[in-house]
Each structure stands twice: as structure tokens, then as C-alpha cells.
């Protein structure tokens, strides 16, 4: 094996190996370090017994103290819910108007509504509630089904055109081409009229023709001036806000084949207090009436 070699300068034994004339001193570990190391070993044995430690094939050693970090998290969540209970009870009892006018309740409801929105609603309505094609923008002041607190609350609770309940918002726009109510040329004229209604440039002559068809077919739901009707969920056609698009091509498509967006009945999925908070939150987004 390696020969014993004492270093000249320090008097310390070297490891016995030499690399290109370089040797390494072999000083023993200081005692205090060595004993702390032994203490760590003893500690770890105790730890293996007391706490979750070793993986098994499809499980793990659970430890005698029965600690689990998942259970610890669950306990913390339960504690948080407990501390929120005071406010949640108040919200349960208060009416929507009350919540809106009381700053403390309002702040709590807004925060709860925001987090519930992010979890449940943002997938369709967008992370900032700005919507997308076919999914309404909740920040503006145009509401298909009404923008008062109660209307919003109803829409969230019962949803739109779903099979779940009789209280769901429901309406059916005819598919004028598919159902052969109008011909393509007529649809073109109506589309031109809608362009004119909403202040966009178009064919004035065609719009003139479309006006008559509009008065016959569309006014009953969309209103005389195209101002929309929240009872039927009929959007206003006389402004720049469009759910599917306001260009000629999209308008033709909409009139020809109709639209019927859907929304779940959140009242069946979420806690009533959460739905209340959502209503408060949506109403506060900038367009609430």
C-alpha cells in the first residue's frame, strides 16, 4: 500500500500518494466535527422512526408520529375557511344591494368574486373578463340578459340555454337562411342595414331595402331601433360592440345560421355565497347598471 510519509514543514502525515511532486496532508477531522457527525447519524435514525422517510414499492414508511404535509395543508386551509366564516355568514344574510353599499362586505365580496372568477369563469370569458368571439366581454356596459345586480345574479345562477333548469336564460334566433325564411339576397340587404345601424360604411341602397325586412323580421326581438332586448337576450345592433363580429361577412353568417351561446348553471355547481360574490364582482367590472 502507500508508504507512510511525514511532511517536512508541518510535521503532518501525508496521504502517501504523490502527484507530480505534490502531496496532500492527511489531517484528521477535528473532534468536534466528528462528534457532531455521529450525533447527526443518531438523530437521523430517530427521524426515520418518527417521520415519513423511506419509499416503498407503492407506498412509504409513514412514521410513528403520523405527520403528513398534505394533512398539514388541509388543516391550514380549514383554519383559513374558519376565519373567513364570519364574513361569509354576513354575505349569506345580506342582500346584493346591501353588499354593494357596505365597504367592508364589498371588499370581501370583490376579492372572493375575483378568485372564483379566475377559477370558474376565465376559461370562457377571458382572464380579464374581456371575452372572445362568442363569449361576452363583461367589462363593457352592454348586457345580453341585463346588467343590474339581480339580472347578473340570475344569469350566473341559472346559466344560458342549458338543459339543467327551467329558469335558464333562453331564446332562439331563427337561422334565416337554413330555415329558409329569407333568401341570400335578402340576408345581404339586412346585413347592410345592420351595418348602417351600427354606424359602419356600406351599400346605402341595399340598406334601404334591408330596412323593410328588418322591420318585419327582426324588430320583434331586437327592438325598433335595434337597441336590443334583455328579455330575449337579443343584443343591441346599433353600437360597436359585437359578440361574434360586426363585419359584413360575420353578420351574414349570424343571420343565416343563427347563434346560440351557452353557459352552465353555476347555481348547481357553486355555493350560493360564491355565486353572490361573483355577481358583485362582475357588476363591478365597469359596466354594471
Amino acid at each position, binding site marked *: 500500500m502507500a508508504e507512510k510519509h511525514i511532511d517536512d514543514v508541518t510535521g503532518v502525515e501525508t496521504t502517501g500518494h504523490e502527484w507530480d511532486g505534490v502531496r496532500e496532508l492527511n489531517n484528521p477531522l477535528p473532534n468536534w466535527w466528528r462528534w457532531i457527525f455521529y450525533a447527526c447519524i443518531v438523530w437521523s435514525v430517530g427521524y426515520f422512526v418518527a417521520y415519513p422517510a423511506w419509499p416503498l414499492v407503492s407506498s412509504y414508511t409513514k412514521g410513528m408520529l403520523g405527520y403528513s404535509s398534505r394533512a398539514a395543508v388541509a388543516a391550514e386551509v380549514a383554519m383559513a375557511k374558519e376565519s373567513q366564516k364570519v364574513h361569509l355568514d354576513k354575505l349569506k344574510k345580506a342582500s346584493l344591494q346591501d353588499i354593494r353599499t357596505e365597504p367592508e362586505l364589498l371588499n370581501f365580496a370583490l376579492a372572493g368574486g375575483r378568485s372564483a372568477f379566475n377559477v370558474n369563469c376565465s376559461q370562457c370569458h*377571458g382572464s*380579464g*373578463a374581456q371575452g372572445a368571439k362568442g363569449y361576452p366581454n363583461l367589462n363593457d356596459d*352592454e348586457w345580453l340578459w341585463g346588467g343590474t345586480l339581480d339580472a347578473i345574479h340570475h344569469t350566473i345562477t341559472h346559466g344560458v340555454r342549458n338543459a339543467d333548469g327551467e329558469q335558464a336564460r333562453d331564446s332562439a334566433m331563427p337561422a334565416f337562411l337554413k330555415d329558409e325564411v329569407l333568401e341570400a339576397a335578402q340576408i345581404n340587404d339586412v346585413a347592410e342595414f345592420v351595418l348602417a345601424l351600427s354606424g359602419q360604411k356600406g351599400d346605402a341602397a341595399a340598406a334601404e331595402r334591408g330596412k323593410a325586412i328588418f322591420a318585419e323580421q327582426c324588430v320583434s326581438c331586437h327592438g325598433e331601433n335595434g337597441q336590443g332586448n334583455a328579455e330575449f337576450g337579443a343584443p343591441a345592433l346599433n353600437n360597436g360592440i359585437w359578440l361574434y363580429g360586426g363585419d359584413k361577412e360575420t353578420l351574414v353568417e349570424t343571420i343565416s345560421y343563427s347563434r346560440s351561446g351557452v353557459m352552465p348553471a353555476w347555481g348547481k355547481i357553486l355555493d350560493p355565497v360564491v355565486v353572490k360574490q361573483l355577481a358583485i364582482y362582475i357588476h363591478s367590472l365597469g359596466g354594471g347598471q
Partner: protein
Amino acid sequence: MNDTGTLPDVEQIDVKAVDHKESGSLYKKREKIHPKRVNGTYRSLKWWIMIVTLGIYYVTPWLRWDRGPGAPDQAVLIDLPGRRFYFFFIEIWPQEVYYLTGMLVMAGLGLFFITSLVGRAWCGYACWQTVWTDLFVYVERWIEGDRAARIRLDKEPMSASKAGKRILKYIVWLLISVATGGAWVFYFADAPSLAIDLVTFNALPVAYITVLVLTFTTFTAGGFMREQICIYMCPWPRIQGAMMDEESAVVTYRGDRGEPRGPHKKGSSWEGRGDCVDCNQCIAACPTGIDIRNGLQLECISCALCIDACDSVMAKVGRPAGLIAYASVAGEERRRRGENAGVRMARPRTLFYFGLWAAVGLFMIWALISRSDLDINVLHDRNPLFVALKDGRIQNGYTFKILNKAREQRIMVLSIEGLPGARLKVVGSSDSGDDATPFFTAEPDRVHSFRLFVSAPGDIVKSDSMPIRFVLSDQGTRARAQYDTVFRGPGK
């Protein structure tokens, strides 16, 4: 050198065999130092500084300052849960922590300045390690006696009286340490209430743990580690070397006057010999146990106790004081050449340090004076950037926060500049209406957060980003806070 007498041809060379192991060892076991008591100018100066600094430290948490109902009445308080720092009439919010930064910068620059003038005066007079070690050594001297008595006591075998002295010493040290740890926690909570809580075991665990840790560190550092901290642990000595130059006044042994040294018999002449009588009092008085006659050393903390010791010996043998004195290297040069040694305090280095220190100080004073007690922060919604409304108006959403740093309720009005025809709408504030200037009530010492919507006619919004300014004004005091942000639109 030894005189062998009977063998005149052999010269005995005074040399000590060098033992490999010892000379190569990098480890030197600590020898306990027993500084001897001295009296003199610098000793008195040290006592005064100790009384003042310890006095400030222990007494300050108990000073009171009335701030009105609902506010803490302690003059100096670091309120961590409430996120405030109180210093007499000054109240700092957490985002103003730069005041603390400024103070630390000034402390650093001040240290550089002092060091460039008088060397390691911080180390020798004001450093808490020196002050507490000095205090602990004083207690040790009071209970166990002066240097000679303590050395004897160390060598004695354990006996009832030795044990008794040691235990009494440790008890007094422990009391001082607990008081030190206690004073520290009193800065972080109301002192009278916390004091009662501590003794009735009602205080929070963190308070007890802090007191315990500081007791342990004070006891160990002042009782046992002492100069080991100065020599091995503290980074300041190594930095201060860079702050000193040849004009800095440091503790200097005047070798040209003192050498050649040797014992002096009373009545004999002083001709052909130096003033140093080799009494070694300077070494005995030194808290770090060095010989200043070897010159300025890392271990010398510039406490000047050796000056006092030497001066008193010089007085006894009838020689002038100042064999060891505060002197600068260049000054000594000049003195040896026969010129006036002089003290060059105003030099580029000192003026630079002082200038920087003063500049930071003035800036902080200005910042403090111009500090407003009303602040607003406006965060523009990023998602969506803007919303088109039914009637063609464009609407932007903002979250804005009012920071009311005053201690009374305020009514404030919000207005907007840079957007003609703008309308402001605030969510929830029952005081506000849907008009151009909503108003708010802000509670004292609080941050209020609101959702704000600004809408403008579509034709006003010409580009995709217009600069606007929110102005919040206090109806009562006419205080104003403003915030510049943008109004986003569809753009072209």
C-alpha cells in the same frame, strides 16, 4: 546575551532552536489576558463614552412621545406587525426604508472619516464589543481583584472561595447580559407592557428567544471571547487599514526617544539611554495583550490605555509624558527632523469623507422635510387595456391606492388632467357619484384601495396611449398628491 566568563574565546550565540512542528503550526491556543487597571485621560474618556453609550442603549426604549389616541407612545419604536418605525416626531412607512439605508451609509462614511482622522477610535472607544468587554473586565476586576490577583486566582486549585468568586462574577455578568437582551426587545414593542409580560410569562416566544440569544452572545462575547473577536472575527480592522494614511493619528511608541530601553535605577543618569524603563506596563494594560513598542499592529484597537500606563510611569520617574502618544507617521517624521509635528486634519482624504457624509446627511434631511403625508399609487389594468362602451366611449380601469400617512381622517377629491370630457367612476365608494370629481374619506394611517374607471369620448382618444395625470387633493389642508399614468385606446 550570556557571558560565559571562563571561556573567553567561545562566543555564546543567543539562539533558540526552531522546532518544526511549532513553527509550522497555524493554530495558537489562546492565552487569557488580564488587563491591569490604569488611570489617566484616555481611561476617563473611555468611562464617559461607556456611560453615555450604554445609557442611551438602556434608557431610550423607556422614553415616551405622545402621538395621539390609538398610536404608540414610545419615542423610539420599531413596530414590525404594524409596519412602522417611530423616532420621536418622525414616523416612517416600510416603503421609506431608504431613510434607514441613508443612516447606514452615513454610519459607514462617518466611520471612514473618523478613522482617517484618529485611526481606530471606533474600536477603542465606541464599539459595543469594546464597551461590553470593558464593562465585564471591570466587574471581573471588582470581584476577583486586579491583574496580579486574577493571575494568582487562575493558578489556584478550585476551592470554596474561588468557586464563590467565579459564581458571583458569572451572576453579575448574566444580569448585565439579560438586561442587554431585554433592552433590545424593548425597541420592538411597548417597553412597559412588554416588561410586565416578560416577567409574568405572557410574552410571545420570539421575545424570550431573542432575550435568550442576546444574553448568550453578550455573556460569551464579553466574558470569554473578548479580543478574539477583534483579532479574528471582525472585518472592520482590515478595512480601517485602508482608511488611514500617514497623517492619521495612531497610538505610537516614540522609539527615537525610548530606545535603547532598559531598567533604570533611581538616581542614575538618563544619558545615552532611552526613556523606556522596560517596565512592561504598556503590555499589562493592553486589553489585546500586545506590545505597542513593536509598532502599530492589527491587534491594537487604539484604546490608548498604554498611553495612560506609560504616562503614569514617566511621571513616577520624572520624565516627560508622551513616550507613547497619539501621533501620525508623517508627523513623527517632521518631529524627528526638528520641525513642528503639526496635525494635518484637513486633507483631501478627510475632506472627501466628510463631504460625502455631509452630502448624504443633507440629502436625508431634505428628504425628511419634504416628505408628504399623502401619497397615491395608480395601477393601470393590463387585462384588458381598454374597453369600448355602448355609446362609443372608451373606458380604462385602474386600481388606485390612497396612502394617508397622517393621523387624522381626511376627505379628498380626485380629479384628472389631460383627458377632456373624461368621466370618473369609483366602485363601491358610497361617497362618490358618477361625475368628474369623486371624493373619498380616508382613515388615518391607512392605505385605501379603490377600483376606478375613467371613460372618455371615442373621438378624444386619438392614439393608443395618452398621458394623463390624477390629482388627489385634501379639502382641509390643501395637500396634493399626483400620479402620472396613461389612458389606453384602440389606436389606429
